């Protein structure tokens, strides 16, 4: 709704105000006349009319205000154009000319309608900081004229990738809260999942959009089993597979069949395929590690990131043994790009432990512990240090 209204106003703040007004009016009118057949369309029409009225008022007051909208635009309010407007708004929020921090915050604020204090809390920054970040981003959208449009075909794949990255980041932030007491921040994960579902509908031909949704669905299917009843972090091999949501996993599977159908898969599809293989395995040991290793090798080709290389090393350890994997992890350590990344020492520690080199493993767990800011993770690592020290 905000998306459609913003098209009318070309001013994000005015659109937000108009939408809020529309909600207020809705509560009054609906209480009197009952809820209309299409409440969404009703709200959008009212919000747009409000925005227009407000704009006309201001136009008379200060003749300088430009009427950026074409007049015929005001009359076209068929609900079928709403999805396209949400897509346009997503492309504005995730424009590469905005910092990634701003992209994430704007998407939550403008596409999902999350209130600024809640966004601030989710990203552990002061409310004033988040408000300033949003204001700065909105100013840039206006000053630099970031278009409210779906990008040209030549740019589309790259721009869709930016949108997918923001949604994935949103989910990841909610999934493993970097610090604080709760490992899963449901609000963020739910919003990210909503966005991924929406994008899948809006871009039905985009295989990576299907891939991202599949990836998030598999993560979501396992979310309840990631911590024990007392809040301790559980590793994949310790999780109760019977408690995984088989409905979500099946849905992910169907999406993957589509995403893998034509041409070489992209990074989200490959990650989803890896997650789905894990989700379908009867146990950690009985996982199809060879195929997982193959998928990681393909992933590293399309996305040469040291984090991917680290995850691939874990698959190597399951196929070729911990010794071979340790060689790769040590190479990554020398490479230096993962300095400060807590999963590097913790992965190394696991491998050392499996090789019976517990003293070195304890050192590596300690190094990981020093880098972790998440309480559940710290407790897990402290426990690992204790058990390897003996």
């Amino acid at each position, binding site marked *: 709704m905000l998306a459609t209204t913003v098209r009318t106003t070309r001013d994000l703040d005015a659109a937000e105000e108009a939408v809020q007004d529309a909600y207020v009016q809705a509560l009054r009118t609906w209480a009197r006349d009952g809820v209309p057949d299409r409440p969404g369309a009703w709200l959008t029409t009212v919000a747009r009319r409000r925005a227009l009225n407000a704009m006309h008022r201001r136009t008379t007051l200060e003749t*300088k205000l*430009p009427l*950026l909208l074409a007049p015929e635009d005001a009359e076209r309010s068929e609900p079928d154009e709403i999805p396209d407007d949400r897509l346009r708004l997503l492309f504005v929020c995730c*424009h590469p*000319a905005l910092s990634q921090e701003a992209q994430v915050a704007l998407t939550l604020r403008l596409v999902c309608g999350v209130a600024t204090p809640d966004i601030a809390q989710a990203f552990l920054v002061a409310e004033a900081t988040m408000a300033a970040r949003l204001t700065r981003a909105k100013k840039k959208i*206006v*000053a*630099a*004229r*970031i*278009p409210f*449009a779906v*990008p*040209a075909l030549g*740019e589309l794949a790259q721009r869709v990738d930016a949108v997918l990255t923001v949604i994935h980041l949103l989910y990841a932030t909610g999934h493993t809260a970097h610090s604080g007491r709760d490992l899963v921040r449901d609000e963020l994960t739910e919003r990210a999942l909503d966005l991924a579902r929406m994008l899948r509908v809006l871009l039905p031909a985009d295989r990576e959009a299907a891939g991202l949704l599949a990836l998030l669905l598999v993560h979501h299917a396992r979310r309840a089993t990631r911590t024990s009843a007392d809040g301790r972090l559980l590793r994949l091999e310790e999780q109760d597979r019977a408690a995984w949501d088989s409905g979500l996993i099946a849905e992910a599977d169907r999406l993957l069949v589509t995403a893998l159908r034509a041409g070489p898969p992209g990074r989200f599809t490959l990650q989803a395929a890896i997650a789905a293989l894990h989700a379908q395995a009867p146990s950690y040991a009985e996982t199809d590690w060879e195929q997982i290793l193959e998928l990681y090798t393909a992933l590293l080709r399309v996305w040469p990131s040291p984090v991917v290389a680290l995850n691939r090393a874990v698959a190597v350890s399951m196929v070729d043994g911990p010794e071979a994997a340790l060689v790769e992890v040590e190479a990554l350590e020398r490479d230096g790009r993962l300095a400060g990344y807590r999963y590097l020492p913790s992965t190394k520690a696991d491998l050392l432990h499996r090789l019976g080199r517990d003293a070195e493993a304890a050192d590596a767990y300690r190094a990981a512990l020093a880098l972790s800011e998440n309480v559940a993770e710290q407790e897990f690592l402290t426990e690992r240090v204790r058990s390897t020290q003996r």
Partner: protein
Amino acid sequence: MAQYAVLIYEAAEELPPEVLDAHGRLPERIAELGGREVAGMALQPNETATTIRGDVVTDGPFIETKEALAGVFVIEARDLDHAIAVAKLTPIVDGGVEVRPLLGFEVAEAR
């Protein structure tokens, strides 16, 4: 249409003839994309710069960077995406360009 400055940052000391040629053809190519080059200027190299801070006059550019500000041109474009598409036409040897909206009539009007 809005106006944007395209700032060219270049590490190469001398531009090969084909790059200079490409600069010459730039207005035409921008027009093909539906934009317009309003003005353009090329700067002499960093060593020729003089900096003044307060009362102190020193040798060299204001900010010392590997890629020196080598030129500026002003374009007219529909929006940022259009401006980016136009700016991508800039011939570069070793460096890049920065796109900045001008604080002009159009922008002031939108406030």
